[in-house]
């Protein structure tokens, strides 16, 4: 028997790690991955809550999240390819034409 809060706190930690990853990583793909990490954290929270309350819709949400994540992945990777093609670098810090 594991209290729900454990799971939720774990999700919080993972979410935070995702945030940190987003800020720390330089490679666009890695940054994107950190977003996925955050989404996973969300999923964990959803599942934990749904199981905790014995309601299933939480798991339905997880499915939606995953679908959306997939869609984002498609588009995101498309954009990444575009960037890579336009300027031969995946370093997010080098993409700062628009500023001030």
């Amino acid at each position, binding site marked *: 028997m594991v209290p729900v809060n454990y799971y939720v706190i774990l999700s919080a930690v993972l979410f935070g790690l995702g*945030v940190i990853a987003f*800020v720390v990583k330089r490679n666009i793909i890695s*940054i994107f991955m950190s977003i996925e990490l955050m989404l996973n954290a969300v999923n964990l929270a959803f599942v934990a809550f749904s199981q905790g309350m014995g309601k299933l819709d939480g798991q339905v949400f997880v499915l939606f999240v995953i679908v959306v994540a997939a869609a984002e992945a498609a588009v995101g990777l498309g954009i990444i390819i575009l960037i890579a093609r336009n300027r031969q670098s995946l370093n*997010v*810090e080098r*993409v*700062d034409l*628009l*500023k*001030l």
Partner: protein
Amino acid sequence: MTAHPILDSLWIIPLLPLLGSATNGLFGKNWPNATVNTVAVGSTGLSFLAALEAVREFFQLPADQIPFVKAFFTWIEAGKFRAGFDLQIDQLTVVMLLVVTGVGWLIHIYSTGYMAHEGGYYRFFSYLNLFMFFMLILVLAANYVLLFVGWEGVGLSSYLLIGFYFLKKSASDAGKKAFIVNRIGDFGFMLGMFLLFRTFGTLDFQTLFHNVAQQGWHREPWGVFGTMTIACLLLFMGATGKSAQLPLYVWLPDAMEGPTPVSALIHAATMVTAGVYVVARSHVLFSLSETALAVVAVVGCATAFFAATIGLVQTDIKRVLAYSTVSQLGYMFLACGVGAFSAGIFHLMTHAFFKALLFLAAGSVIHAMGGEQDMRRMGGLSGKIKYTYGTMLIATLAIAGIPPLAGFFSKDAILLGAFKMEGGHPLYAVGLLTALLTSFYMFRLIFLTFHGKARYDEHHVHVHESPWSMLGPLAALAALSVIGGWVAAPALWGGTDFFAKFLAPIFGSGEGAEALSEMAARNLEWTLAGVAIASALIGLVLAWWMYLVRPDQPGKLAKSLRPAYKTLLNKYWVDELYAAAVVKPLLWISRQVLWQGVDVGIIDGTVNGIAHGTAGVGDGVRYAQSGNTRSYAVWVVIGAIVILSIIFFWPGSHATMGMVR
């Protein structure tokens, strides 16, 4: 047809000159001088006739209708305040009216000759008529506001006429100076009016004086600064400006930049006496404040002496006359100050005659000398321009106070008044001394100009007598200067003391009148008269000795008392003082402190500072926009933390804060 047509349409008297002025001003540019003359002289002449007729009708009026007030239309009206275009005529007005129109007319005639060869002929006469208009408004006004109209108006016309030769900087300066100094006086005059209105709720002479009587104001003793005193002093401030008394006399000497007829008419005969007129007109108020009267007397006396001293050493013939004018005006104020109003007015009249005559004669001299005004380059003219010489001599005798000419009686009356007034002896003494000085510098003028050997080079300057158009008026004024005095000749001289009696309804039964009764007074008068005559003669003799017998004396004297001489010559450096103490600092402060300092520096500085500051912050905000996605992410995180901390750590129920009910 009413009994007195002119009185009922009193406006005709001032209106005529105005029409003349307008006509000449608008259309006269291309007219021949003759036409301009006809208009100008005609209009003034007509208004003179109208005035005479008005006076005739006035004498037929029953006593209860005097003063005769005629309201024409309301000019300004607001709340309880009403200022109407109301003209009134009473004894005082009659005197002024005749003097103004008569002398004015004569001087118009004179000018036609004098100005014949000047440019802007039409302009000159337009201005001159305009002056007549305003002066008549001034004397006919039935309330202070309308009087103020004339008051400012004559100031304007004098500004225009002094600056008539506007190509000369000195001329335009003098004009400006005259106007502004007068404005300083008017400042006081206005405040005086305000105070009167606030106190009595009206500015009409009759109602106001009536209210004064009604409310039973007691006479404010010396040293008390009650309403009445302050009002009177404020009015007197205006008078000092207009009538060139200390400390505002400075403009009058400079005003001699104007054409000589102007000096004669405006700066000798009429306008400058307006101050005296106002004081006399408001005598009801003045006589309720000993302080005010004393101030008037002292200022007048001081001015008389002060100006006379300056007059001693002036070499410009017109300036001598100018200072003498200032001095004589001082006399008039002295008279008013000691309560001898009728004497003051009397002197005003006689002075108008002989001083106008002096100026005109001087003008004729200048004319003869081809524009020369410096007496040191004249001399021995008596033979060449007898006529002018004659008239001018008469005028000089008159002003010097040699009986039986006009000046004697008036001046004698004033001195008598001063002597009679308790504590008036010092005033009397100074007055007497001034009389001596007067006769001295006047005869100095005569001797320097007409006697001795010619000090000008005869080849260039060919002296010639002036045309009749100029000599006519001289003659007329000379006559007046001779006989003018007798209208007021006291019984003592076998006269009827008509003038004092005539003005009695206004000033109360004259000072002289009851004094006549007993013996002592009579003896006193004799002695005073004798002393006066003596002093006049001393002055004459002194001048004769210094400038004809021993012509080198003045130079020596000047050397021996150099400082005094210089001081007098430079008119006590008053102009310089004013310039250094008032004008320059004012300009400096305005330019450096107010304009550059406050306006550009502080205010605009602040505004622009704020603007730049904002822009600076704006740049700061822009630099948060580094274009780097990572920092953007950090911004989002920061925002998240901010929101969370606000929501979690903000004290209490929040919405009530930050509200203003």
